[in-house]
Structure formats: structure tokens, C-alpha cells
């Protein structure tokens, strides 16, 4: 291939039982097409099979390959090495989640907050609104935008200082349920986010929306949740609805 060049990859390493993490540096020859994920696969195959990283779909759909590339949260599978400035690429695991090893973080805490929002994976499709669905299909559906990559949690300064913070992904999921309940218990979801560690904790840094690779815009979702809750908490609304509007049944 044309336009090959050699790039230094400085890879964050950590293994359980070791005292401190370290960096290993590898030279990788890349073409204009090579992604960071491909470069890391090359390192794993040729230099060090013990290199741990997560990947699955290779097209920004599964959300496993999130990492910090030169400090910036990105999906390795759609980040071209050529698009990164500089001759050296530093890759590190996502922040604000515990590290299992090398570039792999433990997603347990992420899913522990995400799962209670009970966002169904399948939503109504808003694409091609003029299209009529075929016989036998009530309405066109599609997979939800959020790919559960955790980039937003890694970049969020509040998640960095408050481990109990529900975090942008879970709050965005809650807002999706409010928008399109699909049989979920909306009042219960709202009650879960209406807490000091829920949507009120956010400091509106909007970093989550800037890094989200999948058009979720969690920052806006959090503000929308606040709006909904403020409206519910207005004294005249409360009286009208007989008590706190979202008290769990």
C-alpha cells in the first residue's frame, strides 16, 4: 500500500498482582486506512499475545473498544492512526472504571447503573418517515443509539469525583425510557434519577455529548430530565396530581 509510515505506540499495561502500571512502546507500520484497533491487534499478534483489549464489532456498534487515545476518549475501531496528530500514539484504558488489565476496564459498575434504567434495546425507527412498513410489520424498529461504550463516563469530571454518580449513559437511558416507555415504568425510572447522585449531580461540562460516538447526547438528556422533574415538582402541579408526581407505585 502507498503512504506507509511507522508510528510509535505507547501502550498502557497493567496486570493483576503487579504493583504499578507501565507503558510499553511498539513500532507499528500503518497505512492511511489502519485503525488504532488494527494496530493494537498487530501488536498483540506479532509482539505480545498477552496484550488485553476489548473489541468485537469493528464498526462502532458494540461499544467494547473505547479507550483513551492521546488522552481523548475514542472508539479504537473507527479511529484512523493517520488522523491522530503526532508521531507517537499513547493508548490508555478508559478512566473512572476499575482496570482489569492493560486496556480493559471492568464494565460491571457501568452496567450496574445502566441496567436499572431498563432501556429496551429496540426502539421505534424514525428513519425514512415517509416509508410505509410492509404487511406483517406494525412499525419499523431499530436498535437504540447507545452502544454502552462508557466513553461518556470516562470523560465526565463528575464521574471522576463521585463514584456514586449515575453517570451520563445511565441518565441518557432513563431519558430514552421517558421519551419512549415501551412498557417500562416511567415514574419509577424518574424517581431513580431524581437524587443527589442522579441528574442533579451533573455540572454541565457537556464532555459526554462531545465524545459520544453514537449521537446519544447524554448532556441534553440530563437537562431534559431536569426539566421534566422541575415541572413535576412545581407546587401547583403537585397539588393537581395529588402528591409527588413520580412517587413509585
Amino acid at each position: 500500500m502507498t503512504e506507509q509510515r511507522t508510528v510509535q505506540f505507547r501502550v498502557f499495561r497493567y496486570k493483576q498482582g503487579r504493583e504499578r502500571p507501565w507503558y510499553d512502546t511498539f513500532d507499528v507500520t500503518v497505512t492511511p486506512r489502519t485503525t488504532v484497533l488494527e494496530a493494537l491487534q498487530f501488536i498483540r499478534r506479532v509482539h505480545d499475545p498477552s496484550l488485553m483489549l476489548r473489541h468485537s464489532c469493528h464498526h462502532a456498534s458494540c461499544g467494547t473498544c473505547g479507550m483513551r487515545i492521546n488522552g481523548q476518549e475514542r472508539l479504537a475501531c473507527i479511529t484512523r492512526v493517520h488522523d491522530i496528530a503526532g508521531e507517537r500514539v499513547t493508548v490508555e484504558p478508559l478512566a473512572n472504571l476499575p482496570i482489569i488489565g492493560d486496556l480493559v476496564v471492568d464494565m460491571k459498575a457501568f452496567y450496574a447503573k445502566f441496567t436499572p434504567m431498563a432501556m429496551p434495546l429496540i426502539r421505534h425507527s424514525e428513519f425514512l418517515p415517509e416509508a410505509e412498513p410492509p404487511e406483517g410489520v406494525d412499525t419499523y424498529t431499530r436498535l437504540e443509539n447507545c452502544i454502552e461504550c462508557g466513553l461518556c463516563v470516562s470523560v465526565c469530571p463528575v464521574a471522576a469525583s463521585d463514584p456514586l454518580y449515575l453517570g451520563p449513559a445511565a441518565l441518557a437511558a432513563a431519558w430514552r425510557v421517558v421519551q419512549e416507555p415501551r412498557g417500562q415504568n416511567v415514574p419509577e425510572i424518574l424517581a431513580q434519577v431524581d437524587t443527589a447522585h442522579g441528574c442533579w449531580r451533573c455540572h454541565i461540562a457537556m464532555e459526554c455529548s462531545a465524545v459520544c460516538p453514537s449521537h446519544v447526547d447524554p448532556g441534553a438528556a440530563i437537562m431534559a430530565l431536569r426539566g421534566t422533574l422541575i415541572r413535576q415538582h412545581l407546587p401547583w402541579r403537585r397539588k393537581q396530581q395529588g402528591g409527588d408526581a413520580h412517587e413509585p407505585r
Partner: protein
Amino acid sequence: MKGAFHVLVIGGGATGAALAHDLTLRGLRVTLVERWEVTAGTTGRHHGLLHSGARYVLTDPDSARECIEENWILRRIAPDAFELNDGLFVALTDEDVTYLDPFLEGCARCGIPTRVLSREHTLRLEPNLNPTLKLAVQVPDGTMDAMRLPLRFLATAQHHGAEIRPFTEVVDIHFQGRTVAGARVRDHRTEREYTIAADVVINATGPWAGQIAQMAGVDVPIRPSPGVLVAVEGRLCNMVINRLHPAGDGDIIVPQRRLSIVGTSSWVVEDPDDLDVPEAHVRMMIDLGALLIPTLREMPVRAAWAAARPLVGPRTAHSGRELSRTFKCFDHADEGVEGLVTIIGGKASTARAMAEVTTDIVCAKLGITAPCRTREVVLLPHTAYYAG
């Protein structure tokens, strides 16, 4: 579950995941090891098509029948996992139209429901399709998330006691005499090597099955057959779009989230780890995809990647298209090596059936009579795999 037989599954792809589920439901103690993250092999990278089987009716009716049967089962056991928008087989040329009758007959024989749609009707369903199309046939295809369906099998297996160990690579097969008694593994998290003892070892390593077989001194007829997929920005269709012709390159467009994914090509390699994405294939995907949906050409490419099919076939095969898409289970006792079973081939859509057949063989070896229940047991949501 003390005293129960212990089965070691090697490989955390769709096949291994479905196996772990079936084995635990039959009361076995299960450990699954995967050298990378689960689904990081072929599974996570597949096209995302929940097959109706229609793609195979002309060339591979056995595979087609498997697909449609599993399609109905998966809809039941994995509710809310699929975009159930159906699929279209679109005839673009007069030559394509000549396939209509054999296609409809084939579908009828395999039990795949069809509905023939006029050009105008088709364009009302999918306005971005090439307006010069002749007609289309509606079939029950669907879209899945290639990772999240297997995660549901894993989550359910884990819930029933299976132990899933990612980042744990099998480096050797552990023998007692001529009998396979487990595997030597390396845990990349702790850099430690240890042996997992097991009554039966199942090799579910897809395109890598040859490597595990080699460790055990047996041979499996596996042909790793990669294909290129290209995802473009923008959701250009809601249904799965196929070309009505004998299965070929670049003739399926699967919509997923905000992307449209066009594929695929097919060749054969020795080492499934070393897959490049030939530039020519990427261009070919776009060119062929644009025959079906012309605007595809204008959309920015989000990603292009390759994955290796674990096809069953002789060493002589070289394009992969001539190989059957059905699966095959090998009990290596037939070659004098007890305790090792290999399962290869198939599709992600038929992983449950592959697991059923394999588990039947394993249970027969161990004298277990528990019937298969995976047709009925509804799977946990994918999030339960990580949330625990």
C-alpha cells in the same frame, strides 16, 4: 452442582455462548474460556443478519431450513433483541427475475414465507432502493446486534452457574493417556498458567478450531473464509435488502442503528488472525451495494473490516462460496481421542441449534438423558452478562 460432570468449552463466540447455555440447562458444570473478550472472534464482526434462510434456498437448502427454524425460535427466546422489519430480495435485472420462480419454490420447500411485491409497492416500503428495480420478495429476515445476542446466552448460562473466563487462552490440551482430560490455559489478567480439568472438552473456536485440534493431535476440515463488510453513515433502509440472485458478493445491505452495512466478499486463508481488508474489496462492496441503493455511494464510510467464517470443507476449497453454510460436529473418539468434541460451521443465527446437537453428543457420552430446553427458555437481557 457438586458431583456433576464438568465440561470445558473453548471459545466465547456465538457457538460457545449457546453451548454454555444448553450445557448448564442440562445440569452440567460448565467453564467457558475465551482468549480475548467474548465475541471478539468472528461473532462480533458478523453482518448482523438474523437469517430467514432465503439466501440459501437456491444453493444450500439444508442451511436454509436450519435458518428459518432458528429464526422463529430466536424471536421467542430473545424478545426485544431484533429489528423485525423483514427483508427484501430485490430483482434488479431481467436475469434476476428468472430466479423468481425457483426462489419462491425453494422458500416454499424450506418453509420460508414469502410475499411478492410490485416495483411500486417495494419503493413505498424502501424509497431509497434503485428505482429501476423490477420486483421484490418479502421474507422474514431481521437485524441483530452481533454481540448482544450471544451475550444473552452467556448471561443466562452465567446465571445458571456457568463460569465464563475471558482473557484466558488455551495453550495446550491436557491428556490422561489417550483421553482428553482438560486444558492448559494462560490467564492474561494475572500472567499465570494453570490446568482446567474436565470430563469433556468442546472445541468451539470457529475459524481457529484447526489450531486447537492440532494441539490434540487430531484434524478438522476447517476452511477459514474471510469476508469484507463496509459500514456507511446513515440508515438508508429499514428492512434488510438482498439481491435476488444466487448468493454472491456485495449483495446484502443490513441496516443497523444509524448505519447501513454492505457485504460481503469471500476468500480463504490459512491464519484467521491475520486478516487484511483489501482496498479492492471495500470499493467492490460500495459499487455492488450502490446497485441496490444508489445513495450508498455518497455516504461517508464509517468502517471497513473483515471476519473469517468457520466453514467446513476440504483443503482444496478456495473461494469459500462453494462451501456449505451448515455446521458439523466431530466426536474425536472416532479418531481414537476420547473426551474432545469439535463444533464448526453454521451461522450466528443457528448457534442454538449447533449447541443442541453438540450437547446431545456430549450428554450421550456422559450418559445424561436430560432433554434440550433451549427452544423454550427465555434468555436474560444482555446487560446481565456484565452487571452479574
